[in-house]
């Protein structure tokens, strides 16, 4: 579904992602792990076309993303949930979710019902401003926004960072459900090894912009975690 | 600070030779032409003054014409008093028409030439100091500086037009006496006078260059790039910015004084929004990062204006506007940037032909990429 061949990605002249290759199968769950500042976020931003330039090749369902503008990538079915959630603070919850539908190729503007079944709290707060929600609620909103576009692939950047533990579990369950029950392909950037291990079909460990290690979910041992993720 | 010093010196030297020797010769020492060119020089001087604050420190002052105008009026007041010596009470003619009883107190000091000249520098500088302290202490930057200075300019111009009794209003100050300096009477159509203006420009340039080449210039360039970082090295950023602003104002005032000598009248249009933005245009066309280039910009644009407006009476402004848009879009560093790029290219070519790779070759490639970068930004 998503394939990178010797991918480089630049901010200015400095290559943040260097020579990264991977292949992500439809319906799979991939975790991208690594310490702070190794390029995990940049990798997702590269997939969305938000870096200054790329080298190598990047394909989504056979389309060369190197030739696709950012605004055209959403409608192809890539839903991005950025780090820090980045919901629109002055928009109401409803407007935020509707914004997701702008990326629908079929131009429908109604919000699928299952979103509110997943996040009942959002139905309750439909007319509150996004900026007034708590961190956990904002995260739910960010996911809901991405779901409103009916994505085939979800890119999640540290969705549980800075969120109260009880909601973390809830969000993790939703992400799992989206993958297992709705068949949405998931790429998850995460620091929490336990969730990555529980959920992933495959994992990629990045170090200094390069792939340090890959493997299947079960292979994600404590040793690897200690070596690449602690500190 | 050292590398391009020789290169720059050649540039300044060429400029001095150009305006001191080549221009008078090319103009056949014709009094009228020399006067016209002296006018360009004075305008080049304001452009250079703007480069001091805009190019060096990144302070876009859209009100540069205010300080220029103040300088102009200061000089005009002195000359007007000279011309009015035989009038009743020594009062300028327009005051008589508007029923002013006696010479207002703030006109009195301008009987003295030395006070006038000092005031021509100091009043603009003082105004700039107040404005600068006011803005920069509050960490006002970028667009807001532009807006504040623009609003200030409009306010000043309105006052000068309104207070017709003291300033001659819309008409400005006309019918001025020639300047008498150390027994020398300035005949503004003479060669001496041209050299006087040219000399002033060169001295002003040298002072400006001294400022830019000193550590102050370095700090200012750093402030332009990242003011916060400069603060963390212990510099009082607001004070440096104010200094640049003042120096720029003082030179603009100086240019204003010369301009009055050349044209023999002062008018509130000197403080107009259009004139002020025109200064910005000259500076941008020449290249705001170099004082000499900015001065050249002022001279070249005005020269073209003088020549082309004879040929295409109306089309000229159109041409100016279009040229300006193109300059902003395509060469944000002005003619100077273009020149630098060309120079760097030729250097690479020469090195390439001599087959000289290695360290030197590497450093020139670095220059080339640098200019490219700026071109895109």
């Amino acid at each position, binding site marked *: 579904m998503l394939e990178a061949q010797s991918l480089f990605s630049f901010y200015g002249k400095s290559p943040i992602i260097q020579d990264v290759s991977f292949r992500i199968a439809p319906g799979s769950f991939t975790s991208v792990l690594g310490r702070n500042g190794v390029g995990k976020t940049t990798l997702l931003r590269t997939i969305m076309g938000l870096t200054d330039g790329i080298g190598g090749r990047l394909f989504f369902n056979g389309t060369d993303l190197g030739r696709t503008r950012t605004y055209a990538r959403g409608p192809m079915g890539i839903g991005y949930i950025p780090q820090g959630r980045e919901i629109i603070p002055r928009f109401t919850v409803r407007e935020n979710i509707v914004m997701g539908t702008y990326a629908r190729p079929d131009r429908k503007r109604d919000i699928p019902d299952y979103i509110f079944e997943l996040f009942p709290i959002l139905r309750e707060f439909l007319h509150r401003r996004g900026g007034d929600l708590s961190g956990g609620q904002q995260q739910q909103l960010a996911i809901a926004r991405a779901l409103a576009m009916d994505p085939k692939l979800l890119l999640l950047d540290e969705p549980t960072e800075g969120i109260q533990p009880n909601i973390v579990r809830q969000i993790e369950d939703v992400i799992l459900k989206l993958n297992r029950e709705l068949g949405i392909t998931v790429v998850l950037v995460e620091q929490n090894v336990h969730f990555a291990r529980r959920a992933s079909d495959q994992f990629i460990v990045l170090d200094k912009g390069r792939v340090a290690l890959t493997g299947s979910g079960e292979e994600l041992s404590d040793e690897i975690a200690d070596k690449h993720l*602690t500190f | 600070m050292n590398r391009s010093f020789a290169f720059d010196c050649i540039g300044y030297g060429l400029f001095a030779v150009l305006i001191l020797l080549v221009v008078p010769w090319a103009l056949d020492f014709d009094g009228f032409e020399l006067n016209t060119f002296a006018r360009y020089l004075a305008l080049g001087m304001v452009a250079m003054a703007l480069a001091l604050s805009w190019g060096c420190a990144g302070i876009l002052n859209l009100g540069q014409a205010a300080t220029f105008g103040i300088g102009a009026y200061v000089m005009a007041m002195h000359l007007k008093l000279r011309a009015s010596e035989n009038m009743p009470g020594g009062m300028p003619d327009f005051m008589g028409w508007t029923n002013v009883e006696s010479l207002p107190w703030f006109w009195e000091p301008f009987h003295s030439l030395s006070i006038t000249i000092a005031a021509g520098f100091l009043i603009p500088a003082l105004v700039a100091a107040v404005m600068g302290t006011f803005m920069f202490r509050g960490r006002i930057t970028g667009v807001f500086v532009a807006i504040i200075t623009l609003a200030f300019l409009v306010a000043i111009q309105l006052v000068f037009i309104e207070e017709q009794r003291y300033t001659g209003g819309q008409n400005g100050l006309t019918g001025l006496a020639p300047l008498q300096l150390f027994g020398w009477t300035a005949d503004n159509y003479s060669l001496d006078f041209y050299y006087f203006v040219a000399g002033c420009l060169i001295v002003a340039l040298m002072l400006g260059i001294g400022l830019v080449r000193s550590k102050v210039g370095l700090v200012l360039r750093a402030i332009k790039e990242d003011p916060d970082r400069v603060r963390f*090295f212990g510099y009082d950023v607001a004070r440096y910015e104010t200094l640049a602003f003042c120096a720029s104002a003082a030179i603009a005032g100086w240019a204003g004084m010369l301009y009055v000598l050349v044209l023999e009248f002062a008018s509130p249009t000197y403080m107009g929004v259009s004139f002020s933005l025109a200064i910005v245009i000259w500076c941008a066309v020449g290249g705001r990062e170099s004082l000499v280039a900015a001065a050249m910009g002022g001279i070249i644009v005005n020269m073209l204006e003088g020549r082309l407006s004879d040929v295409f009476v109306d089309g000229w402004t159109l041409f100016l506007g279009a040229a300006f848009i193109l300059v902003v879009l395509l060469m944000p560093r002005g003619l100077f940037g273009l020149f630098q790029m060309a120079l760097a290219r030729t250097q690479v070519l020469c090195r390439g032909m001599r087959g000289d790779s290695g360290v030197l070759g590497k450093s020139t490639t670095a220059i080339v990429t640098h200019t490219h970068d700026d071109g895109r930004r």
Partner: protein
Amino acid sequence: MAQLELKQLVAQFGGVFAVNKLDLSIRQGELRCLLGPNGAGKSTTLDLICGKTPPTGGQIVFDGRDITNLAEFRRARAGIGRKFQTPSVFKELSVIENLELARSREPGVLASLRVFRTRVTGRLREVLELVSLQDDIHTRAGNLSHGQMQWLEIAMLLVQDANLLLFDEPTAGMTIQETHRTGEIFNSLKGSHTMIVVEHDMSFVRQIAETVTVMHQGSLLAEGCIEEVESDPGVREAYLGDGGRDHA
């Protein structure tokens, strides 16, 4: 005698406590590593010390003087130097110009009006050699490699003659060799300079660390030598997410 002391320091941004009642005390000449997961408040702590962010509560004492409310350029003059996360050298200036700028013992306008040339002698030469930039003094800083820019910024702090150096991820973007060399530079500065280093690269931390402090959600989580801290269960949990839960 502590050179720098943070007492119950608080920084709050719109309801979120970036730094929450932090106590920290650092000796003259000590090198302290500051660790912690994303958002633990490490960079904010440095911001508070150098004056980039005003604290909402608490006190900062430097050399026995309360600097909590001092303007940033006055703190710099008092001897606090800061290196930012992304290298913030002046890219438009050459290496030597950057250093001249950093050499700010007389930061007044009048003093600066008298300086026209930079002589590469004495301390400046030493520092240049320390960071191996002596052959590139006229290179525009923007054309240096990423690692060299980081070194240039370190060099700038050194010529600034700051007593307390604050480093935010000094080795980010460096190659392994460059990182190692940076570690050597840091080690050579121990004793003469007080340093606080925020860093994620553990091999680098091991190379330089004496005492490490671990922060989590704005507060102090653990403090001690590196082995102690590494085996601290609280630290492991903070880093690896909600660790106990899955096994329970």
